[in-house]
């Protein structure tokens, strides 16, 4: 019969709250705003965190990326092969790649890559691109998805074929409204046949996903590493930089993929050690980047924000709870006589406690239940408003705002918010309800 009694007590509480609708709604608002804050904060934080996670994961959680870093200009070594300009020799070598391959146990794939910035031309259309000379297994390591045509094959690599796969933006710019696969475009003075086009991938490091420069995956043209080395040579001339500058760099990037996340750190340590040994430590021309570490740092940052949001929410819920308690204490005094009557009619102390507790719990739970969707709505409005504001003020950082664009309301956040509001209802109701139950029935009956 407990459930019968519970529903009856609930009905009693709701009827009592409906007697003063305006008062009840105003009391509810405190909790509503509190829960709103919880949901909004958590879903914005979750949204940003997922976005950043996605970006890091594009770099591969089990990857270790070794990049060539161009040293500062003043320490450049002059090589007499240029015509007037200074040539810089730096970066990673095939030897480095071999050393890593033989020293790192459990290294799944080692992908050497070259990056060359140049202009791609298709008839009269031109666009700035980055040529990435790489190996076929780059696709698995970076989860490349081919939309049309095919990816690079071992045969392409072996034959040093002039074939290429286009990033989505390159294909769009050079060959709009047509089928790029099978066309031939010009990279510098060499003709390359398009064999495939990738789906849109977006930016890396847009909202600080990976330290260093941002990379637009969609503006890359992928060619076989062998072709890139032979056609473009080791000496690169960057005419776009204004004056002629030469750089000599065998490999721009080596990606090491290990099987398990636990292997990432030890492998990264070995690689760092190797490079320190064979490169000039006074003039480091390489950097080791570990997406996994970035991911872990992200997780820590996320918790920082969650704690911050939770504190704000806790304060507003506290204020809401005090509001409920205040109203309830007033209500108990106002209804002293009713309490006396009920006691005379056989109500036990716990019946009185329940009666008042139900009222506060119903109020706060209702506040919470309304607060969740309102908070979720607010969460989607925040990034929208920020983007608008940034556009109006002409402030940049759209990339950072892009992270805000997706807000995610997790079941955990909803449970947390609702749980907290029920808790606040109980906590704020206990004292008034206890006071009500401890009244002397005779005195309560005489109360004016």
């Amino acid at each position, binding site marked *: *019969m407990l459930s*019968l*009694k519970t529903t*009856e007590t609930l009905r*009693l509480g709701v009827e*009592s709250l409906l*007697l003063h609708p305006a008062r009840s709604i105003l009391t509810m608002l405190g909790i509503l705003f509190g829960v709103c804050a919880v949901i909004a904060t958590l879903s914005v934080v979750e949204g940003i965190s997922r976005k950043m996670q996605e970006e890091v994961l594009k770099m591969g959680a089990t990857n270790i990326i070794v990049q060539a870093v161009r040293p500062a200009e003043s320490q450049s070594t002059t090589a007499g092969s240029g015509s007037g300009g200074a040539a810089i020799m730096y970066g990673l070598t095939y030897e480095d790649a071999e050393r890593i391959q033989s020293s790192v146990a459990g290294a799944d794939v080692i992908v050497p890559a070259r990056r060359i910035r140049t202009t791609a031309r298709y008839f009269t259309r031109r666009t700035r691109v980055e040529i990435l000379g790489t190996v076929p297994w780059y696709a698995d390591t970076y989860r490349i998805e081919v939309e049309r045509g095919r990816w690079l094959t071992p045969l392409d690599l072996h034959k040093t074929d002039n074939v290429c796969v286009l990033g989505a933006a390159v294909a769009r710019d050079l060959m709009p409204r047509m089928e790029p696969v099978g066309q031939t475009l010009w990279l510098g003075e060499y003709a390359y046949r398009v064999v495939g086009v990738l789906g849109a991938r977006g930016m890396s490091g847009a909202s600080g996903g990976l330290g260093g420069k941002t990379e637009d995956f969609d503006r890359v043209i992928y060619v076989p590493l062998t072709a890139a080395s032979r056609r473009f040579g080791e000496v690169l001339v960057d005419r776009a930089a204004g004056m002629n500058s030469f750089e000599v760099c065998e490999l721009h990037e080596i990606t090491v993929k290990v099987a398990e996340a636990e292997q990432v750190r030890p492998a990264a340590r070995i690689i760092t050690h190797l490079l320190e040994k064979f490169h000039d430590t006074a003039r480091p021309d390489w950097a080791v980047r570990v997406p996994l570490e970035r991911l872990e740092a992200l997780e820590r940052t996320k918790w920082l924000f969650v704690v911050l949001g939770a504190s704000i929410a806790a304060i507003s819920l506290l204020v809401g709870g005090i509001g409920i308690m205040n109203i309830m204490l007033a209500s108990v005094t106002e209804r002293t*006589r*009713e309490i*006396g*009557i*009920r*006691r*005379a*009619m*056989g*109500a*036990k*102390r*716990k*019946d009185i406690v329940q009666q008042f507790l139900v009222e506060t719990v119903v109020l706060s739970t209702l506040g919470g239940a309304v607060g969740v969707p309102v908070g979720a709505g607010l969460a989607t409005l925040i990034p929208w408003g920020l983007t608008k504001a940034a556009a109006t003020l002409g402030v940049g950082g759209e990339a950072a705002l892009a992270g805000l664009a997706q807000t995610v309301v997790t079941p955990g956040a909803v449970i947390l918010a609702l749980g907290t509001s029920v808790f606040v209802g109980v906590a704020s109701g206990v004292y008034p309800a206890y006071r009500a139950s401890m009244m002397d*029935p*005779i005195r309560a*009956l005489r109360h004016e």
Partner: protein
Amino acid sequence: MSLAQLVDLRKVYRMGADVEVVALRSINLTIDEGQYLAIMGPSGSGKSTILNLVGCLDRPSGGRYILGGQDVSGLSDGELSEVRGRRIGFVFQSFNLIPQLTALDNIEVPLFYQRMHRRERRRRAQELAERVGLGPRARHKPAELSGGEQQRVAIARALANDPLIILADEPTGNLDSRTGQEILAIFDDLSSRGRTLIIVTHDESVGRRTHSIVRVADGVVVGHEKN
């Protein structure tokens, strides 16, 4: 057969550290089943205090109180609530209805705490409203009812749990004499059907309608008259 026995019952109110008000010095009283009793006496003599003790709203400072064969003087607050709910019906001078509830809902209050099912409660409340002659006024709230009607609701409520005793503290005190007579007629009728009733009153004419009058002065019983 005796329904309730008050043996050397004392009640002392403690006010502050060492100020004591002796409300009842020694009350000895036996209430038989079906008895219609009036308690009379000057103001402050302890009439209401006796009624509160009989109604288990309060606990005696000394002596024993046996109700329906059970010594209830040492019961806990919860047990006393139980006794009140099952065995006592109260009628007050100021009606004491819950203002936000309709007459029917007010009649249902004691049934609610006996965990009676909603539909059964409603049926019983309607039956009782009929019995006290409330008629179509039963769906109104106390503020929309006359004093007499409110007291009828209170009597119906007192009857709800079919109690052993009905206790009425100056039930006509707030009513004009004609309405008072109507209320007393209901009490007379209840008594004639075998109900046990105790009425506290200042009015000799009210006292004379009952079976017997207990006179109280200064916290002791000073006389017991049969009518």
